């Protein structure tokens, strides 16, 4: 028996103290333990469980849910290559192979000396400067072969991450087009002062007048949401900012938080003013770990400036503060009720709705959950008024939308446009030529073919959470859909049968087609799974998991038909390969030790 290593005890004690022994912070504690100890050892779970007085099942249940928490050793250096389709198009798989070869390890396995592991992860939100990877959850951008080689050297030499070249960790904002939001150079406190001057009631009235709708995807009226929450009875009201930004191809919240954090926090404060809330939480995706310290610094600066804390802007009774919770690799936590579960320190399983968060949210109290961009935009409304804001965009879609443009184009990055901008306008601006398709709003969004580029970004035409991935004529749209299906299978929370099993079945079928075993029979199967996912799933993830397949089948059918190489049904696996273990064990290689793919009659 080895003695319990001291660092574990110290790490647990420190994190438990930091979070005042509050079991709602268990996810934050696990994450901090992992940061300190490189993994969450059984001894760490023992100590955490005892310190918090929780059953072990609770701790293990949470630890097992999040991709970035490891209950088995994964190495001192944990490399995760971002595996969005845009990373693929930039050659991430080749780079991953290169790294594995140089480090003499197999993808997904920890090296024998416990030094390093290399694997893939869902899109890390660096699509405009990929291929990207995470080392111990810190983002590295613009990975190429020399950078891979250098990283391998650093790992072999066991150089501390803090001593790696800062250049590797450089994340650019790449704002290509500013409009009212990205161009607003507001002084901290300006919008909040305007909101305070209006007062809560008038602020809500302006917000409704502005026709501001949620920017996170669902597009619910922000004014109505805040009002409903304000009117809901509860002992506390909460403000939650959804910065989970997990939809592959989306990275505008990252830029808003890095360049306009004040605007976001100020929007949350305005919401607090409207609700009479005293606590706000920003749920930051684990992939954006590198921003945590700088965001906390902004919060601290705002406290010093009297923009957070007790008696904000000198107003008696306006007490509000914000804390940042970090996610740990779970796309589903972007769904608002799963996000709240995660904030409460639970597995990120979407709740049954109704009731909705506005009446029963965090700790079952009335809670507003809004996207980063929504909060930022609310500042403009507070400052300039609802009528002004409603005058921008189209009649059904007020204001502007920030698009995260990536893929095959000369100038990837952020483009802010008034709603109503056409897809072709954006394509022209970003320098995309020979475009075959655009995936708007990520895998759960819509895939547009060339004939549809006249359509407009707007709630009434093409609603979007912001992703805008461009594919030129060289790209194989089947590969695109397959990448997205893998994403959903990996990110399904596993709560409900249709999505838990259905996304895996769908992934297997797409792989079957990819491996040349597809027949029209499998095509029918895919369509059947699509129906079940859409009709029976518990939440939006399952509902939209089939979107990329449905869209690409409808619009790029030849990409599928090329795959239906078999007329007759074939097994999903290679029959001859299924004899390989037996061949190895027996040393046979005669004709009878093989099965042909097609039998001679």
């Amino acid at each position: 028996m080895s003695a319990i290593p001291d660092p574990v005890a110290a790490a647990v004690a420190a994190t438990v103290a930091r979070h005042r022994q509050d079991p709602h912070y268990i996810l934050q504690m696990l994450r901090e333990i992992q940061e300190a100890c490189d993994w969450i050892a059984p001894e760490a779970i023992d100590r955490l469980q005892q310190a918090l007085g929780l059953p072990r099942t609770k701790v293990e249940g949470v630890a097992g849910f999040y991709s970035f928490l490891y209950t088995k050793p994964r190495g001192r250096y944990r490399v995760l290559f971002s595996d969005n389709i845009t990373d693929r198009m930039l050659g991430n798989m080749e780079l991953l192979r290169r790294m594995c070869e140089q480090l003499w390890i197999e993808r997904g396995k920890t090296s024998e000396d416990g030094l390093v592991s290399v694997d893939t992860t869902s899109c890390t939100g660096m699509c405009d400067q990929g291929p990207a990877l995470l080392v111990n959850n810190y983002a590295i951008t613009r990975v190429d072969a020399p950078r891979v080689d250098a990283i391998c050297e650093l790992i072999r030499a066991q150089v501390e991450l803090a001593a790696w070249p800062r250049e590797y960790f450089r994340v650019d904002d790449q704002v290509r087009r500013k409009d009212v939001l990205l161009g607003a150079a507001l002084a901290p406190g300006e919008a909040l002062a305007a909101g305070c001057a209006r007062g809560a009631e008038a602020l809500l009235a302006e917000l409704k007048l502005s026709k501001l709708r949620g920017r996170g995807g669902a597009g619910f009226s922000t004014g109505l949401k805040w009002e409903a929450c304000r009117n809901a009875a509860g002992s506390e009201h909460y403000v939650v900012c959804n910065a989970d930004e997990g939809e592959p191809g989306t990275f505008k919240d990252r830029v808003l938080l890095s360049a306009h954090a004040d605007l976001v926090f100020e929007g949350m404060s305005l919401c607090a003013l409207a609700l009479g809330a005293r606590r706000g939480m920003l749920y930051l995706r684990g992939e954006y770990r590198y921003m945590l310290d700088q965001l906390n610094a902004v919060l601290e600066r705002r406290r010093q400036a009297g923009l957070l804390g007790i008696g904000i802007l000198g107003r008696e009774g306006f007490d509000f503060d914000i804390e940042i919770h970090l996610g740990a690799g779970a796309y589903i936590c972007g769904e608002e009720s799963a996000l709240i579960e995660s904030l409460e320190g639970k597995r990120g399983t979407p709740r049954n709705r109704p009731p909705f968060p506005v009446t029963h949210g965090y700790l079952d109290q009335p809670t507003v959950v809004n996207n980063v961009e929504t909060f930022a935009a609310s500042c403009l409304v507070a400052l300039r008024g609802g009528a002004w804001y409603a005058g921008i965009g189209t009649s059904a879609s007020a204001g502007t939308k920030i698009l995260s443009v990536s893929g095959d184009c000369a100038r990837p990055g952020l483009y802010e446009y008034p709603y109503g901008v056409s897809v072709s306008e954006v394509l022209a601006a970003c320098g995309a030529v020979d475009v075959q398709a655009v995936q708007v709003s990520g895998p759960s969004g819509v895939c547009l073919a060339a004939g549809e580029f006249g359509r407009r970004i707007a709630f009434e035409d093409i609603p979007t959470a912001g992703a805008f991935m461009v594919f030129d004529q060289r790209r194989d749209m089947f590969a695109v859909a397959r990448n997205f299906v893998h994403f959903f299978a990996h990110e399904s929370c596993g709560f409900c049968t249709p999505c838990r099993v259905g996304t895996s079945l769908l992934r297997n079928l797409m792989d079957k087609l990819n491996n040349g075993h597809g027949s029209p029979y499998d095509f029918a199967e895919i369509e059947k799974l699509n129906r079940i996912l859409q009709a029976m799933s518990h939440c939006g993830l399952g509902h939209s998991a089939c979107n990329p397949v449905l869209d690409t089948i409808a619009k790029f059918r030849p990409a599928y038909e090329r795959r239906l190489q078999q007329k007759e049904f074939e097994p999903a696996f290679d029959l001859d390969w299924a004899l390989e273990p037996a061949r190895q064990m027996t040393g046979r290689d005669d004709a009878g030790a093989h099965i042909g793919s097609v039998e001679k009659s």
Partner: protein
Amino acid sequence: MDTVVKKKLKVATTSLAGCFGCHMSFLDIDERLFDLLELIAFDRTPLTDIKELGECDIGIIEGGLCNAENVHVLREFRRQCKLLIAIGACAINGGLPAQRNQLSLALILEEVYHTSVGLANGLIPNDPELPLPLAKVRPLHEVVRIDYFIPGCPPSADAIWKALNDILAGHAPALGHGLIHYD
């Protein structure tokens, strides 16, 4: 009444990785077999001496796929038969033989031939006459298209009788309570 003598449907059966239990249950339909023989004629089956499979209307297969030989026979049946029926748990989900799927084949062969004392003088048989085992035992429908399924381990004679009648009448078998069983 229809006086035209209908051409009898040709039926073949076989047992792959099964125990012949389904065949025994089939024979349990007893005197109803005579009614059945009004409608069908057997081609290759363990019940007849016909060794070569000819073109058939219906193939009935018991047992799953354990080895290369099973795969060859199944493919032959798929080629020759218009309709294929998987009968019994093993054909439908791998059944008892598929319990080995939890272990790797290498481990199993090691255990059987190397570790435990026994028959093969510590050698894994490598006679080309012997069919090689598949890495995993597979149900039939994972390798060829199967038209109908009659579950049970084995299905009762009544279940088989009902299912065959349904199929001969041209529709999917519907067994209903008491007849449908997975055990």
